[in-house]
């Protein structure tokens, strides 16, 4: 196991990069939920809050799956373009959600 370990620890660094990015998305989603429920408990506010939570959950699932692949396969396969697109679209959807809340 330790014999064929990459001395540059590339898979581990990539795993931590996914963790950091998940943490960033958590911060953004929490800010979004706070904005949605700011003194307002109407149906649309709760829907916006749920959307932020759902997007965060989607990103978490994507990141967690990739982390497991990175940890279990040597050498790790390249990131699937569909996963990269999905991660970016989660971010875009969060921004759209934010724009709807701001206006």
């Amino acid at each position: 196991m330790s014999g064929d370990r990459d001395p540059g620890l590339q898979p581990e660094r990539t795993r931590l990069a996914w963790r950091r990015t998940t943490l960033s998305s958590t911060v953004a989603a929490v800010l979004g939920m706070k904005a949605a429920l700011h003194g307002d408990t109407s149906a649309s506010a709760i829907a916006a809050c749920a959307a932020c939570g759902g997007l965060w959950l989607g990103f978490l699932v994507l990141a967690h799956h990739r982390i497991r692949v990175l940890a279990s396969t040597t050498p790790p396969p390249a990131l699937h373009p569909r996963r990269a697109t999905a991660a970016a679209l989660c971010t875009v959807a969060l921004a759209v959600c934010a724009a709807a809340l701001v206006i």
Partner: protein
Amino acid sequence: MSEFVRNVRLWFAPEGVRQEGVTPDYRFSLANERTFLAWLRTALALIGGGFAVDQFLPDLRWGWRVGLALALLAAGVLCSLRAVNHWVRCERAMRRGEDLPVSRFPALLGVLVAVVAVAMVVVVLVGWEG
């Protein structure tokens, strides 16, 4: 522009990426992936900044507040879309053994962030005086 359309098609049809050239050393692909994630974090930070402007500067006039927040959110959207596009382009360049693509996006984003920061300082100072 047609190059961009082809790249967008590759986001959703990844088999196209795998058919070209040879698979590069996995460490290069992982480095490309980390760069992509760093850009995604930048995008998330911009989006978080948009939320923060809207929430934590409530004394601003509506137009300024919404304008600044929307500018930050738009920058976040651009940044994340560009992150995928650049990742696909780098991946393809590595498979074909070409030079990595160059981009003026980092400079543009830097200028935009600087402009928003200056605007924010001006608006907060003027807002507090008025």
